[in-house]
């Protein structure tokens, strides 16, 4: 057992001495994005209480193991918090919160995708990071415009939110099915 601990310590020391700056920044970004998304999504009464210490490990774990199921668990936790806050605590669906959660969860997801293929000790060319962040920024911008338009439209059509959500959801599901079908048929 002591050998195992000693090996683990030696490996940790190697990781600490060999780690380079940019992969470290990417992993810090994952932790920060998921933690911020949790603080926005979960009810304020829980966030300011001692339960915050329960969120932190879920948010930070993907930064240490971006290849595992950590990012998926963190995003599901964020969505669960959002559903609890809007149903149980009956919070209002504020535009800024939807925007912030969508942006932060996608940022955490895409940074985890980068960290999964980027070794912690690699010499990273700056083009890699700028290109990756530019694509993520474009995606976030398009979805933010969509969010503003959709939430504005639901405000205009008072009472029709359920119908609109059903229509948008069905349209998105059909679109996704078509997209996946096309991808599978491609050589």
């Amino acid at each position: 057992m002591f050998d195992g601990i000693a090996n683990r310590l030696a490996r940790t020391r190697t990781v600490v001495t060999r780690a380079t700056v940019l992969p470290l920044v990417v992993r810090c970004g994952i932790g920060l994005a998921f933690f911020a998304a949790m603080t926005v999504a979960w009810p304020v009464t829980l966030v300011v209480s001692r339960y915050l210490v329960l969120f932190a490990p879920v948010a930070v774990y993907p930064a240490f193991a971006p290849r595992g199921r950590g990012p998926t668990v963190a995003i599901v936790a964020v969505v669960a918090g959002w559903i609890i806050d809007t149903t149980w605590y009956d919070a209002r669906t504020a535009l800024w919160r939807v925007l912030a959660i969508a942006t932060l969860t996608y940022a955490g997801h895409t940074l985890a995708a980068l960290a999964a293929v980027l070794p912690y000790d690699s010499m990273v060319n700056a083009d890699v990071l700028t290109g990756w962040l530019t694509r993520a920024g474009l995606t976030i911008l398009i979805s933010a415009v969509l969010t503003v338009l959709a939430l504005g439209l639901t405000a205009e059509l008072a009472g029709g939110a359920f119908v609109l959500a059903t229509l948008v959801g069905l349209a998105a599901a059909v679109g996704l099915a078509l997209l996946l079908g096309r991808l599978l048929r491609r050589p």
Partner: protein
Amino acid sequence: MTLIDPPPLRAAVPPAGAAADEGWAPPAWVPTRALGRTVLLTGLLLVLGVALGRVDLVLLAAPFAIGAAIGLRRMPRSAPELRIDADEEHIVEGGEVTAGVTVANPDVIAYDLVVLRTRTSPWLDLEDADRPFAISVAPDGWTAVELPGRALRWGRHAVGPAAARVAACGGLLACRPVVVPARGVRVYPETEPFAATEAMPAAAGLVGNHRSRRPGEGGELAGVRPFAPGDRLRRIDWRVSLRTRDLHVASTLSDRDAEVLLLLDVLGEAGASGGVKGKASVLDTTVRAAAAIAEHYLQRGDRVSLAEYGSSARRLRPATGRRQYLTVLEWLLDVRADTTDSEPYEHVFGAHNVSSDALVVVLTPLVDPRAADMLAGLVQSGRYTVAVDTLPEGAAPPQRSQWTPLATRLWRMERENVLGRLREHGVPVVTWAGAGSLDLVLRDVARLASAPRGR
């Protein structure tokens, strides 16, 4: 008369469809966990949005769906191409080496991230070669990673194998690692300036500095003389014979030279090599000394041959000139310690294979008793033999028990005994110390050579 149908001929090249059916290659591009997460979260949020009648949940799924759509709008089709470039110039240990790895993207989409890993020989000190490199490659373009550094030790050193793993489509698809085999860099040994002022023990005539004055078969024209019985017909100079109406032959000077045989004892390796500026192991000293001695004698115009005393028993034929020097350096790169216990081929080093006038320089650590026997045999057969002791200072077996120091002392005493017995047999043993190491012993050997020979 009936026409016979020609026999059906087999197509030289199989039809295009057949190859696709027979061979199955695994897909080069595979989905990553990020793609699985995208599909899962998008589906989950859409189902929840529809079930709960919440448009905000559908909007939370929007970035994932849009990101996947942007990333997967064009799929990669071909695998990346990888190439290792390494110096092919004359590199001497301690000199600069430039190596590099180039990743080419033959596809129509950009490689968002290429993680490049290279394994290099420990004797090549290349900058950051132990770290992976993360680069991006534009479509139909290439990116090169330079690995400048220094060669620390002689030998054939490998740059590679190199492996590249590519992520494209925003990290949703990844390529299986592409590996290219290693490329060799030849690093020649550093030759300490060596100068032996003493003459060769049996230099009957040298090509170059000391030309023979004896007539005989050779290439150097000495003159034209009348034909005498015993002259070979192909020696007849027809032009002079026609003019003088008597048969004349072209007489030549004999080509004589001294031969130096460098015999490398590769029966064992001792001491740890510290590279060009560090401690020298037995093989380091052997190779560097052999290169220096060969360079010296080849510059003087002598013929130099090399041989290994080991089970591989490699041998380099005697020759002279700069070409031979380069061949010697190339030959020395493949010197390896012989770890097998098989007996060396005695006939390779038998006295009958060594020219009687050759100076035999044996580079040996005198650790193996077989080497001492071989030396004694050479001297007994009347060859001019010089032994160069290549055992590093303070070399000792690793400490294994309390008896190791005692055993080491016994071994040292035994080795001193062997050295003394070799000296009694007339084998001068000298420790290699660079320039002028062999002067003293060569003088002794030259003196021995001037004495009447015989057993």
